[in-house]
């Protein structure tokens, strides 16, 4: 053999071609016959085919040490999100909420029930814990319930964090996740002053949004209030970028992705993240009513993505967030942090959540499991445990060592592994252990199908589609 094979993974992509990917996300399609000649060492090293393979660093005629050094630099860049440790800190000031979403995943409290409100002492200890993170960037994201139901606590935490940061001098960001309906001008002005971005939920046109996310007070029109408050927020901030929206797909959303996307465009959003329902909380209990087979989501997702590509072709710049994330991994050498899909998993080491009582969970989903008396992923409590005990304890080490796709069964030789990630919490919730079983794993099915579809689109070599995809990465 005139060349050295470098690490790669492969899969039959279709009847005539194999797809090969390497550790740093480079890829190439090879005809079946070329693939077999390649692995048998029979490709002419002066052929165009070999130059293509070599340019992807899947084989080399150079000194191996030199190529290793280059690949190691790229690998290090891809994994550089690990260097900073936990930067996303989600805080639950209260479980009170004025909505009754059909897929609600927390044991929400009514607006006048203060039994799950955070105390100032707990808030103080949370902020203290957050600032012990070595990360130079700290994002504090308020979750709920709806945090706007205890806006005083939100303000207290923001100001406490700003105070701490006078000494720590980190890059500090805030986000509040809210249904918008309780926000008034004074609150929005406060959020603007403290540069606290707003993340909201929008499930689609009025009837769908109101079906998925009704307010507890049935007299109120959720969608109308949402729209009115969204324009108030944008007016005060003076731009549209201050508020982003997330959608969740319930059974009622299936078959309606075009309408959902149109609603996002109508309301002035320039991106959407087409999200499937996750299996925690009420969603699992009421599976029959609101859940659906993952295959249905995948079909809807593909139609939605095609529609978004068409919109872009017609001149509307509009991004699908999940595709953009994956494309960045497939087409660029850059690091992409995404707590829900990275390897090692982002649980605890990239993001963490502090509940109203000071309990610390490795992810929001872990907190939801705790509502059903499963405390497996609870790292401790800020009122009782030190930062070291929680973030350098045996539990987090154990979780992370079970959460690297590089060595999980089936992932280990999956061609999509460089773009994928592990989720030990979801594996535990759905399949009973942190490792999970890939052949029946819904998350795996979804990710695999979507990455496969993106590769199909890239493989068309359609200049228009490529232009659109690249425009999403800037």
């Amino acid at each position, binding site marked *: 053999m005139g060349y*050295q*094979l470098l*690490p790669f993974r*492969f899969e039959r992509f279709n009847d005539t071609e194999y797809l090969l990917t390497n550790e740093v996300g480079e890829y190439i399609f090879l005809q079946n016959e070329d693939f077999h000649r390649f692995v048998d060492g029979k490709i002419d090293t002066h052929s165009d085919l070999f130059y293509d393979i070599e340019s992807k660093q899947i084989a080399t005629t150079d000194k191996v040490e030199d190529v290793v050094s280059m690949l190691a630099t790229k690998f290090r860049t891809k994994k550089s999100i690990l260097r900073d440790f936990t930067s996303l800190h989600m805080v639950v000031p209260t479980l009170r909420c004025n909505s009754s979403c059909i897929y609600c995943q927390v044991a929400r409290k009514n607006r006048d029930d203060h039994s799950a409100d955070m105390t100032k002492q707990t808030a103080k200890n949370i902020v203290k814990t957050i600032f012990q993170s070595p990360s130079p960037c700290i994002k504090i994201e308020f979750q709920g319930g709806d945090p706007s139901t205890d806006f005083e606590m939100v303000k207290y935490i923001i100001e406490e964090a700003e105070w701490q940061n006078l000494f720590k001098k980190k890059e500090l960001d805030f986000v509040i996740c809210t249904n918008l309906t309780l926000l008034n001008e004074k609150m929005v002005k406060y959020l603007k002053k403290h540069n606290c971005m707003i993340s909201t939920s929008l499930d689609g046109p009025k009837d769908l949004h109101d079906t998925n996310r009704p307010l507890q007070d049935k007299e109120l029109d959720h969608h109308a209030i949402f729209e009115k408050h969204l324009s108030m927020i944008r007016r005060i901030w003076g731009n549209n970028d201050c508020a982003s929206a997330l959608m969740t797909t319930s059974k009622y959303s299936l078959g309606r992705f075009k309408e959902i996307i149109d609603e996002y465009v109508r309301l002035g959003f320039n991106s959407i993240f087409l999200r499937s329902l996750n299996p925690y909380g009420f969603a699992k209990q009421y599976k029959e009513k609101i859940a659906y087979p993952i295959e249905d989501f995948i079909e809807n997702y593909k139609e939605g993505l095609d529609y978004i590509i068409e919109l872009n072709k017609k001149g509307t710049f509009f991004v699908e967030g999940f595709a953009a994330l994956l494309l960045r991994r497939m087409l660029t050498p850059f690091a992409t942090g995404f707590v829900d899909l990275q390897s090692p998993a982002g649980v605890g080491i990239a993001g963490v959540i502090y509940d109203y009582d000071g309990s610390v969970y490795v992810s929001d989903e872990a907190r939801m499991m705790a509502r059903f008396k499963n405390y497996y992923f609870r790292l401790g409590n800020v009122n009782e445990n030190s930062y070291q005990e929680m973030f350098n304890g045996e539990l987090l080490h154990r979780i992370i060592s079970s959460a690297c796709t590089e060595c999980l069964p089936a992932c280990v030789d999956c061609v999509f592994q460089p773009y994928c990630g592990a989720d030990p919490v979801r594996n535990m919730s759905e399949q009973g252990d942190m490792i999970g079983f890939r052949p*029946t794993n819904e998350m795996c099915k979804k990710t695999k199908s979507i990455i496969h579809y993106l590769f199909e689109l890239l493989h068309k070599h359609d200049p228009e589609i490529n232009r659109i995809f690249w425009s999403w990465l800037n």
Partner: protein
Amino acid sequence: MANIKFPVVKLDNNKFQVIVDFNLYTKEVVTASIYKFSHLFYIHQQTDADNPNLVNVIFESKDDNTITEDITKQFCNELIDQQLRHNVNAQFGHIRDMIVEEAFKPVNSK
């Protein structure tokens, strides 16, 4: 060509048996291939009584999944892919280790 036959045998009780030759496939490869089918069928492996170089992999229906000869042929293809992965890994596994080691080496230890 006419003499070439898939090493698949239909047994009683809706079971199929694939005869795997350890001269062609390693133990790890057989296990990795079985793993990918184990959610659909009960799968059992047993060394051939007369020839220790052969292992009989027996597929039995599970839930409502009816087993057909096609499934076992897919298994034969999976064996080939897994063995190929095993072979190429033997050529570059150490390089993968070198890359990871180099990537996570503290910068100042160079």
